[in-house]
Every structure is written in structure tokens, then in C-alpha cells.
């Protein structure tokens, strides 16, 4: 995964939450990198740690209960975690912006949508109010909302429109990195199609890098260059979109594909992954997936880190039963 000119590099990120005296191991040594203009998909189920990774990149995890135990997050070579609060403010919403999953709760209900975007623009740019308002109108129109709706409040917009407002706000300061946390999960498919197309267009136009968090493999297939599959706070497989969709290797990735009802297959029975994701306060020894894995052997439950194996250039898999010896 090491490449030069990486705009974003995350190294060995470990994040824990403390709750009721118990330690929740949310992110357990995640490393990833992202080039300019590229989109990386983070795929995994609820509780896998996807959102925690994104929030750690912005350093907006609530502390307590969350604590970044170790790791480095380099943006343009600068370690975010080592910056002062004042310097972080300059990066958040400016260099790195985030689109949250639920547009209904991401907007201020008692402020017009235009004001909310203008506020962000004024905060990060040397604009006069008039310039900032003009920029807001420009952004609204870019995402397909007529400029006259500047004065309207969030409740006057539909879900899809609200998500566009959130996207307009995120893009208003020309971020270099966009963290999109399930940006279309709350939307209907036809609106999802419009929003994904819009995000793809804007990304190409502005050469923005993006991390797209989703549980929907179809969305990944349409938008991402690279994909990281996360299970219990670890990347279990990483590769290009082609690697992941044409030659998935990790038993968990295979399980995810098997769980999906196929559009072109009439078989009656689905093949779900048996069992449940592990309790993050008490992760299994060895490979976290071994209790649910059809290929697991005794070796998989031995103490110690399962290494990432490079199956082909750029395609990594964290499984001792896959790859070289198989």
C-alpha cells in the first residue's frame, strides 16, 4: 500500500472507546493511503469501525469516551493528530470535509440552508459577506438546487435535497479530501443514482480525493477506485475495485457477496455468513473472523497478528488460509 505522493496516509491507527469500565476495540491497527483524485471505499457491517476511522482522520472523535491509542494520520505529510486545536480548525471543513450519513440531523433546523453554507464559507475564506453568499448560491446550483431556495429551512426540503445541501456545504471550501459516510443510504434509489452521479462529476471536476464509507457493494462498484474491507476494526482485504469484485479472496469478503440477493440469479436460498460480528470488548484470539469462517482451522485462532499477504501487486488479504499456500 506504500506509494509516493500519497495525499493521505493512515498508519497503524488504533482507536478505543471506554464505556462502563470496558474497552471497546473499535479500530485495531488500520493503515491505508489515498492519492489525489482517487476514491477509496471502506466497506463493512455496522460496528466494523468505518465511521470511527473517518472521524479519526478529522480528529473529531469525542474524547472521552474515544481515544486514539496510537497511529499517525498524515495529510500532505502533516500529522493531524500532532497539530494544535487552532491548526486543526483550519483543516476541518476546509482541506478535509465530511458528509454525514443522516442529512436530517446534520443540518441546523433553525437556520436557513443558505446561511449554514455561508457560515462555513466565511469561516474558511477571506470573503466579504456578499462574496460568500454568491459562493453559496453557486454551490447550491452546482448540486441542482435553485439559488432562490437559499432562504429556506431544512424542513422545507426533501431527504434527497437535504443531502444535496450537505454535499454543497462540504464542497463549498474546495476540500482536497472528502469523507463521505454513507452519503446515499438514507435516499431512494433514483435519488441515490442522481447524487452518486453528481458526486462523481464534482470529484472529477475538482480532483478531490474521497473516502466513501458504505455497506452497499453496488455503490462501491459505481464510485470507487480502491476498496478496503473492514471487519472488527481491521482491514481484512484491500485492492483495486477489479481485485475485489473479480477476485475476492478473504472469506469475509466472499461471505458478503454470497449474502446479497443477486439480480440475475433465481436461486431460492441465500447464503448468509453464519453467526454475528464479534463483541468488540472481547475480540476473538487470532483472526477476528475465525468463529464465523467456513475455512477456519485451529491455526486461525492462535494468538498473534494475522499478517497481510500480497496476493498480487496491490491486492492484500489478511488470511493465512488464502494466498500463497492455497
Amino acid at each position: 500500500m506504500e506509494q509516493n505522493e500519497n495525499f493521505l496516509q493512515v498508519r497503524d491507527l488504533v482507536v478505543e472507546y471506554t464505556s462502563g469500565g470496558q474497552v471497546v476495540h473499535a479500530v485495531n491497527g488500520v493503515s491505508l493511503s489515498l492519492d489525489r483524485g482517487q476514491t477509496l471505499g471502506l466497506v463493512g457491517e455496522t460496528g466494523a469501525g468505518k465511521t470511527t476511522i473517518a472521524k479519526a482522520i478529522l480528529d473529531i472523535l469525542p474524547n472521552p469516551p474515544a481515544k486514539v491509542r496510537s497511529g499517525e494520520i498524515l495529510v500532505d505529510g502533516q500529522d493531524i493528530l500532532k497539530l494544535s486545536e487552532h491548526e486543526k480548525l483550519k483543516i476541518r471543513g476546509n482541506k478535509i470535509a465530511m458528509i454525514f450519513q443522516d442529512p436530517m440531523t446534520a443540518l441546523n433546523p433553525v437556520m436557513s440552508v443558505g446561511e449554514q453554507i455561508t457560515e462555513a464559507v466565511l469561516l474558511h475564506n477571506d470573503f466579504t459577506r456578499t462574496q460568500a453568499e454568491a459562493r453559496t448560491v453557486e454551490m447550491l446550483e452546482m448540486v441542482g438546487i435553485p439559488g432562490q431556495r437559499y432562504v429556506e429551512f431544512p424542513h422545507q426540503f426533501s431527504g434527497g435535497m437535504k443531502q444535496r445541501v450537505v454535499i454543497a456545504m462540504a464542497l463549498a471550501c474546495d476540500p482536497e479530501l472528502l469523507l463521505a459516510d454513507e452519503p446515499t443510504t438514507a435516499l431512494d434509489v433514483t435519488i441515490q443514482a442522481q447524487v452518486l452521479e453528481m458526486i462523481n462529476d464534482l470529484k472529477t471536476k475538482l480532483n478531490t480525493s474521497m473516502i466513501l464509507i458504505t455497506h452497499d457493494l453496488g455503490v462501491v462498484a459505481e464510485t470507487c477506485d480502491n476498496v478496503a474491507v473492514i471487519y472488527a476494526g481491521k482491514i481484512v482485504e484491500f485492492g483495486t475495485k477489479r481485485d475485489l469484485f473479480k477476485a475476492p479472496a478473504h472469506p469475509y469478503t466472499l461471505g458478503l457477496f454470497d449474502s446479497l440477493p443477486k439480480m440475475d440469479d433465481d436461486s431460492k436460498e441465500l447464503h448468509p455468513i453464519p453467526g454475528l460480528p464479534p463483541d468488540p470488548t472481547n475480540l476473538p484470539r487470532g483472526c477476528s473472523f475465525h468463529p464465523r469462517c467456513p475455512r477456519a482451522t485451529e491455526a486461525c485462532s492462535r494468538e498473534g497478528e494475522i499478517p497481510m499477504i500480497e496476493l498480487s501487486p496491490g491486492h492484500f488479504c489478511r488470511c493465512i488460509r488464502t494466498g500463497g499456500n492455497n
Partner: protein
Amino acid sequence: MEEKNALVEIQGLKKYFSSAGGINHAVDDINMKIQRRTTMGVVGESGCGKSTLGRTIIRLYDPTEGKILLDGEDITEVRGRKLRKVRERMQIIFQDPYSSLNPRMSVEETIREPLKESRRFSRKELEEKVDELMDQVGIEDRLRLSYPHEMDGGRRQRVGIARAIALNPDFIMCDEPVSALDVSIQAQVLNLLMRLQDRLGLTYMFVTHDLSVVRHISDNISVMYLGQLVETAPTRELFRNQLHPYTKALLSAIPSIDIDRPMQRVQLKGEITSAINPKPGCRFAPRCLFATEACNQPQTLTEVEKDHFVSCCRVNEIN
């Protein structure tokens, strides 16, 4: 769509709500037949009235107009004890198992409640029934005394299912039952629903916005747009040959996991509007690429091919 023995039949069903902006035509003149032991999938976007339709059919809402027949018997107006009997035969599984279960009742109590209410079982029989139901839906016995907050979404949904099948219903209206679940858990619950249908001879109405799920589980599919039925056909036929412009757009919008198949997407302009004080005529027309003057006239659902009904006056010209 055969004429004989539909378990559930609705005729000209309407459900209007009054809202601040006027009258919301949430369900507007819908005809539908659901055959015994089959699944009718109902798809459409949020606000299209699919849940309202389901809830009106099982008499959670009083219909504004129209008829609901259960096994040939008119249940549109039944009240009191008779309605209770109808409710035993028509059950519902809700989308969010967390908010639909009582947080202060254990698994055992939740499943026992409908059985107890029916006053048909002795104390001993109640316990046996609870055991049997937990076994049928795959909830481990050790969870008997657990509360909803102690369980994951998949297990909570299993409890909701156990409760729905407790009194041997004929018909279950499944209102987005797997939308809140992760894919691996979603597959477990879908398998369970299909197994129960086979074993207990259930008839489902399956309301969802997830088209790959609906394709997997349904025998027939109805597509709704702003309170109206725009197209209905057997599942295979609908996925092979969509005739209504909205259905085409809806199906083409599904993100595909096949990265080699180029997307040929029918992009829609605009967004779903609302069913408040609608104009006569096709409600999809403002977003439709093929709309003409004629679309401002009221549309009728017509059988275009065998069992394949479409509500579009331009269906022959555009296909």
C-alpha cells in the same frame, strides 16, 4: 392475477389523510389480488404510499373508500370482536424491530402476549407454544429472558416474526422487514421468512424499496408512484420487460455489483413530488421523458400482456 381464490383482494382502495397543505391522496384507487401462498412485493420510493397501502389492507387504518376482501369476505367495515378475528388472520412485521418491541418486555413475554390475548391456551400450552415459536424463528433458548436492548437487530426482528406468526395468520404484511439490517443478517432473515412461508403456507405482502430483495422474495411485484399503482406483473416478467417509464427508471437506478456491465441508466429529472391535492392524470408525468398532453388525462391500469398490467396511455408508443 387468476380470478379464483385470491386470499386478499382490494377493489378501488383509497386512503386519504388531511394535512396542512390539503388532502394527501396516499393510496388512490388501487386494485390488487394476492393469491394464497404467494408473495406480492410492493416497491416504490419513500412517500409513495406503499406502507399506507399495507396498513390499510390489514385494517390498521380505516380506508376512505373501496373494499378489502379476505378469502372472499368483505372486511372493510368489520368492527369489535370480528375485527379481532380478522387481526388474528392478518399480521404485520415492522421495519424497525427496536421501536416496535416493548422495551420492558422480555423475549418470552413479547411472544406470549398475543397467545395470551387470544385466550385459547392454558398456562402449560402457552409455555409450549413460546418454546415452539422461538425454535421456529431460531432464537436460542438462553435468550428467553433477554430484553430488546440486549439483542442485535437480526434477533430482534426474529422476535417480531415469532409474534406475528404466533396465532397462525394467513397473511403477513412485511413492512421493510430487513431494511434496517446488515447484509449478512438480512440474508438470514430473508431465508427465515421464505422457510416459514413454505412450512406454514403463509401469504405475504412485502413492502420494500430494496429491489434486489423484492426480486428475491416475490412472486409478483407492484410498483407504486405517489399513491397509485403504475405497473404490476409476475417478478420474472417485470425484471425482464418493464413497460412503465417509472419502472424502467427505478430498476435502472439500482447500483450493480457487476463492474463490467456498463450502466445504462434512465435518469429522472426532479424528485418525487407529493400526493397532496394531485391533479388528475399521470402523477409521474412531470418527471417523465415521454410525457405529452394526453398524460394529463386520468390513466387506467390495463392488461398489456398476460398478467402484466400498466397504467400509462403511451405504453404502446414508447415500448
